[in-house]
């Protein structure tokens, strides 16, 4: 197990290195520079600033310099926000995004598992059909459409919850809902299919032949086995939530990382773009890693296979 984790860690660092490199060069291909909208600057002042920040150097030189700093944990300073550290900006912005993503993932997974299981247990009844309709809607309606609908009906018409901004827990409810519907839909669809399959398996029949009651069979035998494939989609789902927040944060005026990311791309704030990309990638790689470990905890076959290698 220890060797397996070490191996995985090495691959994780390597993946991060590739992503960083790729993003760096792609970003340099973007038209314009951080100074493109600063009409008040004279050509000379411009030169001075570009020289100061090293933006006149050839791209490979800039790359090496950036990587050297990165290895030391230095993400650089923003071009736009008066010498503020990129890490500080990310730190300030991560809170709301993380909270939204976490809430949506938790609520979505829990409701999804519940809905999918109930649909499987009431296979081919109106409960099952109802949950299928919810899943299809949840997958096909984009989160921003749902966000606008929620804002209008719950926020403007009913006035139950605030329409936008970020001033307390009640402000998180609508964006969380908008984000979690997709998770509910995905998880419940997977859960339903897996649960139906598991409930028809021989070991469930054998458990019934042992005289185990219905609830015992579901909780002790079926749920864990049905969860295994669901765990695998949680990784990509978490990423989906991270990117999903870009739009949702914008709609609900949440001061999150996604909103900052979009703003920075529009003004070529190189260091922030790099910083957030690296942060997102690291998070993604970490989540996939955690999911793999979780997978091993739930499924003993995988745990032991990993241990032997």
């Amino acid at each position: 197990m220890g060797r397996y984790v070490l191996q995985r860690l090495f691959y994780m660092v390597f993946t991060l290195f590739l992503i960083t490199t790729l993003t760096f060069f792609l970003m340099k291909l973007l038209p314009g520079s951080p100074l493109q909208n600063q009409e008040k600057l004279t050509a000379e002042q411009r030169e001075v600033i570009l020289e100061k920040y090293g933006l006149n150097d050839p791209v490979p030189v800039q790359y090496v310099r950036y990587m050297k700093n990165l290895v030391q944990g230095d993400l650089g300073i923003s071009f736009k926000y008066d010498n503020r550290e990129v890490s500080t900006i990310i730190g300030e912005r991560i809170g709301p995004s993380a909270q939204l993503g976490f809430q949506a993932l938790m609520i979505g997974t829990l409701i999804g598992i519940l809905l999918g299981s109930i649909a499987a247990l009431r296979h081919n009844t109106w409960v099952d059909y109802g949950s299928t309709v919810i899943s299809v809607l949840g997958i096909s309606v984009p989160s921003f459409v749902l966000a606008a609908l929620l804002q209008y009906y719950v926020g403007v018409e009913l006035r139950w919850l605030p329409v936008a901004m970020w001033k307390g827990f009640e402000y998180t409810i609508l964006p969380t809902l908008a984000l979690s519907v997709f998770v509910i839909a995905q998880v419940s669809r997977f859960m339903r299919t897996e649960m139906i399959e598991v409930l028809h398996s021989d070991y469930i029949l054998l458990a019934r032949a042992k005289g185990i009651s219905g609830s015992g069979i579901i909780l002790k035998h079926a749920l864990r086995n049905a969860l295994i494939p669901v765990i695998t989609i949680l990784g990509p789902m978490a990423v989906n939530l991270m990117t999903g927040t870009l739009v949702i944060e914008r709609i609900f005026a949440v001061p999150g990382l996604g909103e900052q990311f979009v703003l920075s791309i529009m003004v070529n704030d190189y260091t922030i773009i790099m910083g957030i990309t690296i942060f997102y990638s690291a998070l993604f790689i970490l989540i996939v890693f955690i999911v793999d470990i979780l997978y091993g905890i739930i499924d003993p076959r995988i745990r032991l296979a990993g241990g032997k290698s």
Partner: protein
Amino acid sequence: MVKLLEVKDLYVSFFTHAGEVHAVRGVDFELKKGETLAIVGESGSGKSVTTKAVMGLIPKPSGLIKKGEILFEGKDLAKMKESELQNVRGKEIAMIFQDPMTSLNPTMTIGKQIMEGMIKHQKVSKDAALKKTIELLDLVGIPQPELRVKQYPHQFSGGMRQRVVIAMSLACNPKLLIADEPTTALDVTIQAQILELMKDIQKKTGVAIIFITHDLGVVANVADRVAVMYAGKIIETGTVDDVFYNPQHPYTWGLLASMPDMDSKGDELFSIAGTPPDLIAPPKGDAFAARNPFALKADFELQPPMFKVSNTHYASTWLLHPDAPEITPPDAVLKRRNLRTKAGENRGK
């Protein structure tokens, strides 16, 4: 001996899109304490459905016990509620399934799976259950049981897994064990070991066994009595000697003739022509008539009753009617009758 199980006039149907499938059509049999009954028949003959009905495991709502009684120690299982059945299953009647590779929960240690039933039915403590589990694993021949209880099914081979399933079935000292083709999914050498194990366990615990199989070799090896099923009915029943050496129903003849023996080298193996009838619309006479070269006109028209051949031996074919014409059974059957006479002479000596 005392009757343990008595199945009377059992009818089970499944409701499908195509119509009602009459899977079991009037099955009667009984089982005494400590006895082994083999139910033989091809796929779809209703042998598994019959035993699933005994366990109360007919899938609902598609399946239904339409008629009949299943008396287990005098109580009718067919009329029991699910909650009452849960106290019979695993405790009084246990079951072993065909494929040990799929009948164990892959994410639960085998120890937990064996202990589960004990804790539910016998209200024993975890420590006591663990102790009994280790004893059981030892009984079914699993080496290092203390170590193995903590392992998962994928760490066992097929034969070992079937031993685990057997240990599981014995957890609450059941009075009846239903084994649904327990050796079909195993290699021949492992099959023999598992059969030996089951015989051994029967000797030690006195449990009655219903053995479902389509393998006549297995029947000869383990059973006291045999019931041959065809198209949802028992068409012949008797002791192993009755059915093997003096078969009466043409279907049993066909089954025995299609079994290879030491003498049949090079010849093409006999097979019964045709296919079993569609049980959505079962034939009105003997269901085997259409495939039966010896069928009488009456076989097509009227369901034959169970004719008595001896005190232990019954068969359902019009050939046994006093007015039926004399026919010569196939060679394979005649050979078997001779074997019996010889066996009898040998025993006499």
